Structure formats: C-alpha cells, structure tokens
C-alpha cells in the first residue's frame, strides 16, 4: 500500500529541474506541514504530525553558541551544554540519560558557533517524559562545584580527543584566529582548556539566566503526536517558565581584509603537509552565500568535481581537496584545503587550487555542473523527510537563525535558482588574494614533549 506521509503540494521550482536536463522527478517531493505558535512567555513551539511510525522527536534550540561567549571563557557555551545533563530540580545528575535510554529513546546535545541544540527521539507513548525533561531544565538547574569540575574534565578530554591528540587538530583554530578580527567568531567552539578550567558555578548560573530563557528558544516536535493535544501538554509543562530580558545582541561586524594573511605551523602529530585557505564571505541565506554554496559543489562535490579531477586524479598532488561554504549568521568563511601527497610540494598544491579558482571565474561552467548542484540540493531536502529528528532540528534551527521555519521546504529552491553567471560573479568578487587567509601545517619530527599546559587552544 502506498501512503504519503505528508500532503503533496505543487512545487514552484520543479519546472527548473526538468528543464535543466534529462533528469526527471516523478513527482515533486512532499512538503513539511507544521503549526507555529508562540506561548505567553515567548517560547516558540513548532509541531509537525507524522504518524508513519510510533515515534516522535523533540528538539530544543537555544539561541546561544560560542559566538555569545565573553573574553576568557572560550568553550563555555559547550561546557554549559554538558551541565544541562548534570541535574535540574526534579532530575538528578545523569538521570536524564537513564530516563531516555531505559525507555527506548535516544538523545544528545550539540553546540556550534550559532546555537545549542538538545533532542530526544522516543517511542510515541513517552511524550510527557520528554516534555518534562526539557521543561525541568529550562526552568532551573541544580548544579554544584563537583559536577562542574567533573564536566570540565570530560570536556578537556573531548578537546584532546578531537583536537590536541589528532593530526592537524589545531589547524582550524589557528586559521580562524588569523582570518577573523571579530571576537565572537574567531575562537573555536571547544575553547581553550585554561578557559574551561576558569569556569565557576556562578558563570553557569549567570549564563543560564541570560540565555536559557523560553523567549530565547524554539521547541520543535515532529512525529506521532496530535497537534492540539501536544500543544496543550507543551503549555502545561513550559508556559509558566518566566520570560527573561533579551540577551545582548552579538556584534557580527568583520572589517574588510586588506591583504592576504599567511602563517605556517608545525604539527608533531602530522605526517603530511596540509594547506588550508579561507575567503571571507557574507552570512548564509543571502543570494551571494547561495551562489557560493553552488560554487563549493562545482569545486569539490564528489569525483566529478573540478578539484578532484584536476588536482587529485590528474596532477596527483593530493588525495582529497575540499571546498565548503558553512552556515553562519555572522561573517562567513569559504574553506578550501587538502593534504599534499608524499613527495609533493604544498606550494604546488596551493597553485593548483588557485588555478581551478581562476578557471571558475573566467572559464565556462558546464550545464551539467549547475544541474548537479540543483539535484544535490533537492536530494538533501528529500533525504531529510523520513527522519523525525532531522525535521525537528531543522525547523527549530531555521526559526532561531532566520525567524522562518518554512525555509525547510523552500531552501533548496533558492539553490536551484542559481545560474552559472551567479557563480562566476561571486567567485570573482570573493576569491581574491587580498580576501584570503592561508595556513600551512607541516609535520615536525617528534621532539621533546611540550611543557604541561603548553597545548593551548584558542588564539586571542
């Protein structure tokens, strides 16, 4: 029996897809239908029913990330995320894990520069449990020094696992510290171990009060729930949580860069030289950022991409060269890079990258390259449709970032509208020598162990 999960609506951009080439879609993909309500305390609540499976996902996205951190407390937003599992008035330290997993669910939290997200994915009969857990820790935290010290230890090991003990682990921190002048964006999300160690219980309480308010969060629920009933429960659990004054706005100004910036670093854990290049670009969800996202697909999307074919396959200078335009509400970076193959000069790799960048500006862009970008945007949208969690996270995040959860249905159409001329225009505008920052990471023969504490993170 065929059944559609969500109602099918006509798709405005579909004509483009068909016209672009031989690739055909049998029918436009379904759209995500949702309700969008704001409670009295400012909490935005988005609910999308989906009864295909007895499962629901709940995502709470707080409008706070590492960009909100103050000087001397890098990594705090993420450390705070860990504290959200260490106890609230009615849930003991670590009890959250037991309650979710022992009842067949799944959960996690994550922090980036822009936001902090928490989710639970649970069997359909545990809606009350999930709402209770999220509302209890939005209302208040119950944190002590011992719990904080425990998680400072855990997060320090998370940093070592992902950064300090990995080859090229620190490259990205050096790169962002050099490229950005903006204080909100130039440090890493994980932060420095010294700053983590400086965190106090008072910091936790102050951060909670300022950022973890209902009016600074969006709650999305997707799955086997009934909208009216679910909304009534949400009101019951959340509506009495008091609103707080709006947090201070983040300064996202980034002065234009006047000349190329360049640095070479040694990495005792690395075995091959690596190059990383970033170009300053505008925030996401702007026409230029859309075109730059298509440029990234043309340069590095798969084995048919220009970087792969020219640099990896033919010139054999690297085994992988990447390009990406990440999501940012503030000043963005277009990232390019790769590792030099053994016996190959990183300078040759760098030149080969620039050759392709120049070819993108002035040479022809083939119709199939644009079609590929369109189809891959569409594929990304379609593949998110079967996961309740993916939809819940996207809806809450788009509401926090752009005040428009409906972008879940239309964002790929923006990318589908990008033309070859758009790509050439943004490549010419942004991929210039004076707008780039280059970091080369060279392997260093294993030497004496650095002094304890020398393995520092964020550059300030």
């Amino acid at each position, binding site marked *: 029996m065929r059944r559609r999960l969500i109602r099918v609506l006509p798709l405005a951009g579909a004509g483009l897809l068909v016209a672009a080439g031989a690739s055909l879609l049998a029918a436009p993909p379904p759209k995500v239908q949702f309700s969008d309500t704001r409670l009295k305390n400012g909490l935005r609540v988005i609910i999308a029913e989906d009864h295909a499976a007895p499962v629901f996902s709940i995502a709470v996205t707080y409008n706070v990330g590492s960009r909100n951190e103050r000087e001397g407390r890098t990594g705090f937003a993420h450390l705070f995320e860990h504290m959200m599992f260490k106890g609230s008035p009615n849930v003991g*330290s670590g009890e959250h894990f*037991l309650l979710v997993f022992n009842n067949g669910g799944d959960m996690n939290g994550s922090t980036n520069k822009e936001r902090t997200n928490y989710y639970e994915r649970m069997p359909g009969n545990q809606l009350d*449990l999930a709402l209770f857990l999220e509302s209890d820790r939005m209302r208040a935290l119950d944190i002590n020094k011992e719990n904080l010290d*425990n998680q400072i230890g855990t997060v320090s090991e998370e940093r070592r*696992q992902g950064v300090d003990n990995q080859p090229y682990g620190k490259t990205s921190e050096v790169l962002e510290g050099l490229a950005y002048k903006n204080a909100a964006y130039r440090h890493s999300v994980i932060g420095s171990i010294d700053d983590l160690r400086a965190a106090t219980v008072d910091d936790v309480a102050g951060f909670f009060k300022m950022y973890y308010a209902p009016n600074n969060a969006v709650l999305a629920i997707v799955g086997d729930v009934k909208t009216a009933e679910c909304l009534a429960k949400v009101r019951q659990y959340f509506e009495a949580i008091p609103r707080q004054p709006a947090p201070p706005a983040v300064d996202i100004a980034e002065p234009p860069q006047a000349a190329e910036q360049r640095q070479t670093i040694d990495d005792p854990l690395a075995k091959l030289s690596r190059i990383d290049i970033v170009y300053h670009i505008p925030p996401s969800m702007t026409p230029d950022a859309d075109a730059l996202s298509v440029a990234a697909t043309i340069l590095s999307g798969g084995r048919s991409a220009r970087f792969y074919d020219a640099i*990896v396959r033919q010139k054999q200078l690297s085994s992988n060269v990447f390009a990406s335009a990440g999501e940012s509400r503030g000043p963005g970076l277009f990232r390019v890079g790769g*590792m030099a193959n053994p016996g190959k000069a990183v300078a040759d790799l760098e030149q080969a990258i620039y050759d392709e960048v120049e070819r993108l500006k002035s040479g022809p862009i083939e119709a199939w390259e644009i079609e590929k970008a369109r189809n891959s945007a569409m594929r990304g949208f379609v593949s998110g449709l079967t996961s309740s969690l993916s939809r819940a996270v996207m809806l809450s995040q788009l509401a926090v970032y752009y005040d428009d959860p409906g972008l879940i249905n239309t964002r790929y159409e923006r990318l589908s509208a990008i033309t070859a001329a758009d790509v050439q225009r943004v490549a010419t505008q942004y991929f210039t020598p004076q707008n780039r920052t280059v970091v080369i990471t060279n392997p260093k023969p294993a030497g004496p162990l650095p002094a304890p504490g020398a393995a520092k993170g964020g550059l300030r």
Partner: protein
Amino acid sequence: MNAPRTLTAAAAMIALCAVPTARGAAQSPAAQAPPGKGVVVKGRAPVSNQILKVTLPRPQEADLPNGIHLMIIEDHRAPQVSMQLIVQGAGGFFDPADAPGLAAFTAAMMSEGTATRSSQQIAQELETMASNVSVGSSGSSEFAVVSVSSLAGNLDRTLDLAADILLNPSFPDAELARYKVRQKATLVQMRSMPQILAAERYGRAIYGDHPNSRVMPTVESIDKATRDALAAFHKARYVPDNAIVAIVGDITLAEARAKLEARLGSWKRGGAALPAVTDPAPIGPGKVYLVDRANSVQTSLVVGIPAINRTSPDYDVFSLLNAIIGGGPTGRLFLNLREEKGWTYGAYSGLTAPRFRGDWSAQTEIKGDVTDKAVGEILNEVKRTRTEPIPDKEFLDKKRSLVASFALSLETPAAILNNYVTSRRYKLPADYWDKYPERLMAITKEQVQAAAVKYLDPARLQIVAVGDGKRIGEGLRQFGAVEVYDLDGRIKTP
C-alpha cells in the same frame, strides 16, 4: 534453478515495554540504586507504563533465477530509493595472505572505468543526478557491498550505471596507477591516527594472522597490485550465487524485481559454494601492548578478549552483558570513567560476533596520566560482572531499553531490513526478530553473570594502549610484561 518465490508482506505485532518501569520502582528508594556513582536518581519524571504495541514490518522477498535473493521494505514517505547489493565472498576476509587489500582495491577500482565508460564519465553521470553508486569492502569484511541510492525519478539511469560498474569493470592501468598514489597517501595519514593504530595492534593481539586481524593494506601490497589480479578477483568473487539485494524506498517489489532482472539477468552464477571461514587460533593469557606515539596528550585504550560467533546460544545473553558494561551513556564504563571520574569524553564496549569466533572489547580515549588507573577501572568493571549480582533495577532497565528501542527502528526501515539481512546471512529462524523481545526479557541475571564468568576471564584480557610511552609505559607494567611497538607496527627492542 529455484522457481521464483515471492512472500507477501507480512507483519508481526509485538509488545514493547511490557515490564515494570522506572517509575514503579522509584517508590522504594532501596530498589533504585543507580548503576554507578556518577548518577543521582530522583525518580520524579512521568514515565508511561502503557504497553506500546508496534507492528514490525517484514521485508517482501524473492529469489531471482541466477541466485540473487531480493529483500525489500517499501517506504513511500519520500521519493528516494536506496539499495545494497551484498556480494558474499568478495570481502577483504578473502584476500590472499600475501596481498592484503586486494578486495578493497578491486571494489574501489570498479568505479574507475567500464568497457564503455571512463572514470570521469561514471562520476559525472552519477553526480549530475545526485545519485550514488559506490563499491566497498572494508579491511576484513566477508562481503563487498555495492551501495546505490538516488531520487526515485533517477533510479533507472542510476541502476544502469550500477549494473555497468558491477558487471563490466575494465580496471584501466592508468587509473590503477593513480589510485595507488592516493592509497599510499591515505596509508601515511592513517598511521598518524591513534584509533587506527589501536585497532591494528588490537586486531593482531586477538586474531593473530587470521584474516579478521586486517585493518589496512601495506605499501608492498599496494605496489604489487596489478590490473590482472584485480580482474581475476572480480571474476572469481563477484558472483550472484549468494548475493543479497536489500532495498528500501519508494518502489514496489514487482518494480524492483523487473528493474533488476532487466539489468542483472546476464550475471552468471559462479557455481562455487560460499567460501568457508575458520575460527582464529586460540591465544594465550593477557598481554599488554603499547604503541609508542610521542607527543600524544591522551591514550587510546582497547581492552578485549576472544568471544563467540553469531549463532552461539549465548549470543543474546552476551549482548545483554555487553550492554550492562559498556552500552552507551547508561553503561557502567561511561558512568564510571566519564560521569564519575571525568577522565574521558566517552567509554563503551562492543561485541563482534561474525560467522567465526569474534571478540568483546572495551574502548576509550583516556587522559594520559590516568592510563593505568583507567585500565584498572575497566578490569574492575569486568570483574564486578563476574562476582557481584546485577541490581534488579539496573538489570530490568537495561532489558527494557533494548526492547523498547525497537520502536525507534520503525522510523528507519533500513535498520529493520538490516536485521533481516542478518537473519539470512546467519540462517536465523524465521521468527527470530518477532521473538526477540520475549527472548530478551526471559534472560535472568544469573545467566548474565554466568556468561561473564565463562567469557570474560580477566587473566586473558588483552590490553592495547596507544600513547606517549615515556608517560604511560611504566604504569602499564603492573598489568604484565609490556610489548612496545612503533608507529609503523614494528616491535621495538625492549
């Protein structure tokens, strides 16, 4: 030749959560001792006691004339299709002993040219549609997998390419030479990553020279790979006799069958039986292996032991034992090493049970200067399961979590289908998954403790640490003589 056979879509109703809950137990404080000191249980959350009855979909199945077994779960929620073609016998497990990586090279090179398409043509045709066809065969897998996925509207053209890659690869010399350059670069890079070095040493410690010890190829095996060797491996091993095609997506069984028969009808049987596998040789008492990685600021730790195969009668009990020790954030390792001690970002354990005797292991990335203490804690957690009865509530909660999590898989038909592929590969009973909840709930804590006594002998646990030898070597000696290796996998003279 088997007559084509089609099962109609069937479904079994099973009850989840039909056991006392955390809330029920919360009323007697004595019964709610948490599974570790890192946890405080207040017992105030509203947990539903309602029995969740779910309908577990079953795949529809059919046999194609050339031996392919087709399994499909229709999923019409979104216009996309994904397919896994599992070629049993074509994995790295069957690499010749002197050519580790041959299966992986063959798999990767199949997309680098066919009789009628060049490497670039294949990539461009697929990626223009945002479709994926990739052939993979990880280090020691018994099978290769051709993974295919696309938007539903592009499925026909995607399958045309998949069939061409599967049936007509040409292994062009020029592309093979390029592939070798990339592989060697990748190998250099892999040898700088601590978790990969740990996996390599651990594989040797548990499996010796058994094929399952393989983690990565060698420079020598990359150098000596030839077009002829790849073509011969492909010809001999890529046969439909024992192949399984598992499909999830916006397609019916009849449609899928017609599409596959049209494209793979000419794929001829090889005639040979599925190659047998042997158990790894028994190993001696526990040893300590140190991979000396200077400048490490953390230690990659693996502690493990030979275990069981997938069809062992102890499989369910062992799985539950494993979940208690190191299954996710509610496992004892996580609660001890992270939530109580703050020494690590995570600590978990896993049971690997293939057709031959597999292994059980605990692993963590641990703060360097507590490496020896962490080994001690892991050994203690293992010993506790042998000597201390598991508290009733922890035991019930753990069983409940495994059973109730079945509901989540209903959202991901690929996960359910994968269960049935497992059933087929290991010839498990037809009602194996329908009976899984009741089988699991019937396990007693005495059985779990007996399994711990039987399989997890602390004196036989192998300890592998990748870290800075100068800082951690001395502390490891309390667990036995330490064998030291360099980053290239060579033993260092003591």
